[in-house]
Every structure is written in structure tokens, then in C-alpha cells.
């Protein structure tokens, strides 16, 4: 996908102005550089490609409908990601009320310490040893098993490259909570992936070498 370079602040303002006057091409020019970010934000919550695409489309249409309310000093991409996250959350609430445990939790910092499950050595990413599909599947499985509240933070920070501050604002949690959840997310991902790097999904063997000091 060849995505065009992001626009400058001045051209963002100009595109917003034209889009507000009904210029759909101008609106698409605003959306296009962040369409991947929008899809990934939706995926972080929906965890399903078809649902994520629907949420992404719905979020973009909502942005179009509410463009007049966009503050000129804000970043369009951050605003659009926020709308996407809200759309995905409300969709998930409707679809799976009984399964959904994270969004409506009190926003307290209840996280205890997390200890790595093993100490498998993983100095290098053996990229040549891994087929791309294999790597993608292992990553997907690891992301799937992350609880939602960790996955959304990991994705906003480590895929979307948003700052701690932006991530906190978008998710409506404190910056301290972003850091705590990011730590947990990264350590759990390492636990899920490091032993595999050592054997199970690079060689196809079900067993792998674990290094436990106790």
C-alpha cells in the first residue's frame, strides 16, 4: 500500500475547510494517510478483520458528519483514531455485553507486579529463519491472547507510535496507567513469543527449551 506523505498543518487546515464545504475528495485526502492507523485501532479492540473494517468505515463516516466540531489545533489522525476507538468500544458493548470485562471497569490502577514466565534467551530476531506467515501468525496469536486493556495500549504505543500522553487521552486513562499496562503487555508478549523463537514455531516442533532458574 503506497500511502502518501502526511500533510502539513497548513494543508490539513485547508483540507478540513474544503471538506466542511462538502468536498469529498478533500475529506478522503485527510483520511487516506491515516486509514491504516484507523484499521489497526479498530483491530486492537474488535480482533476480527471484518468487524474492524466495518468499525473503521463507520468511524470515518462519523468523522465526516462531525467535521465541523474538529478543533483546528488538533491532529486529524489522533482525532480520527479516538473516534474509531469509541466506535469499536460501543460496538463491542452492544455485541458482547456479557463477555466484555474491560471498558467499564473502574479506572483504578490495580495492576500488581508481573514476573516473566521464563528466561528464554532471545538476543536476535532470526528473521531469515522465519517465514513471514509463520511470524505473522505467531504475533497474531500472541496479540489475541492479550487482554483487551493491554492490547489497545500496546497497539497505540508500539504500532501507531502515539506518545504516552496521546495514548492516555485517547483511552481516557492516566499516563501512569498507560505505562503500567504497556509494561504488562510487552512482558506478556515476550512470554508468548520468546520460547517460540527458541524452538516451537521456528522449527515446527511442539516442545521448546525453557530456561528456568527455579
Amino acid at each position, binding site marked *: *500500500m503506497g500511502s502518501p506523505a502526511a500533510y502539513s498543518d497548513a494543508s490539513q487546515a485547508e483540507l478540513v475547510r474544503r471538506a466542511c464545504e462538502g468536498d*469529498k475528495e478533500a*475529506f*478522503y485526502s485527510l*483520511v*487516506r494517510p491515516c*486509514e*491504516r492507523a484507523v*484499521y*489497526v485501532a479498530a*483491530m486492537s479492540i474488535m480482533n476480527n*478483520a471484518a468487524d474492524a*473494517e466495518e468499525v*473503521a*468505515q463507520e468511524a*470515518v*463516516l462519523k468523522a*465526516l458528519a462531525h467535521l465541523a466540531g474538529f478543533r483546528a489545533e488538533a491532529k486529524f489522525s489522533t482525532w480520527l483514531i479516538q473516534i474509531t476507538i469509541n466506535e469499536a468500544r460501543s460496538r463491542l458493548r452492544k455485541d458482547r455485553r456479557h463477555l466484555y470485562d474491560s471498558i467499564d471497569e473502574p479506572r483504578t490502577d490495580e495492576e500488581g*507486579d*508481573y*514476573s*516473566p514466565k521464563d*528466561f*528464554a*534467551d*532471545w*538476543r536476535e*530476531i532470526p528473521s531469515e529463519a522465519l517465514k*513471514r506467515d509463520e*511470524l*505473522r501468525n505467531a*504475533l*497474531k496469536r500472541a*496479540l489475541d491472547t492479550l487482554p483487551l486493556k493491554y492490547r489497545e495500549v*500496546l*497497539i497505540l504505543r*508500539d*504500532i501507531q*507510535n502515539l506518545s*504516552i500522553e496521546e495514548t492516555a487521552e485517547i483511552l481516557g486513562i492516566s499516563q501512569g496507567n498507560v*505505562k503500567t499496562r*504497556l*509494561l504488562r503487555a*510487552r*512482558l506478556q*508478549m*515476550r512470554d508468548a*513469543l*520468546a520460547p517460540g*523463537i527458541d524452538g516451537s514455531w521456528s522449527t515446527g516442533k511442539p516442545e521448546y527449551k525453557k*530456561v528456568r*532458574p527455579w
Partner: protein
Amino acid sequence: MSVIEISCLEVWRELSNYVDDDVAPELRARMEAHFKSCAHCKAVLDGTKNVVKLVADGVAYELPSGFSDRLYRKIKDK
């Protein structure tokens, strides 16, 4: 310069901030000294850095084919 020792548990607590270069210089020095002497924490650090690299690559979430065209059509049809 000698640094005050730090436990593995404290290292894990700050690991993510360390990877993001978001720890005070004094703590950074203590953590670096710890990584030199503790192979387990060094392995966890290396693994965590690799996670950040792999996730950032975005291979887990590729855009479905035709996504852009369908989105464009939705906007035009609105």
C-alpha cells in the same frame, strides 16, 4: 563510580520505561549494571526490545485487500 544494587523485581517494573528511554539517569545506570551481571534480566530485556520491534513492524495487522477502495466508495456515497 559505584551504583546501588537493584533487584530483578525492580528491574522488571521499570523495563518498559527503560526501553522507551523514560527513566532517570541514576536508575538507568543501576539497571545497566544489573543487566551486566544478570543473564536472566538481560534475556528479558532483549526479548522485550524484540517484541517492540516486531509489533512495530505491523505485520500482524495488514490492511485487508480492497480496504481503501471500499472506504473511498463509502465516503463518496454518503
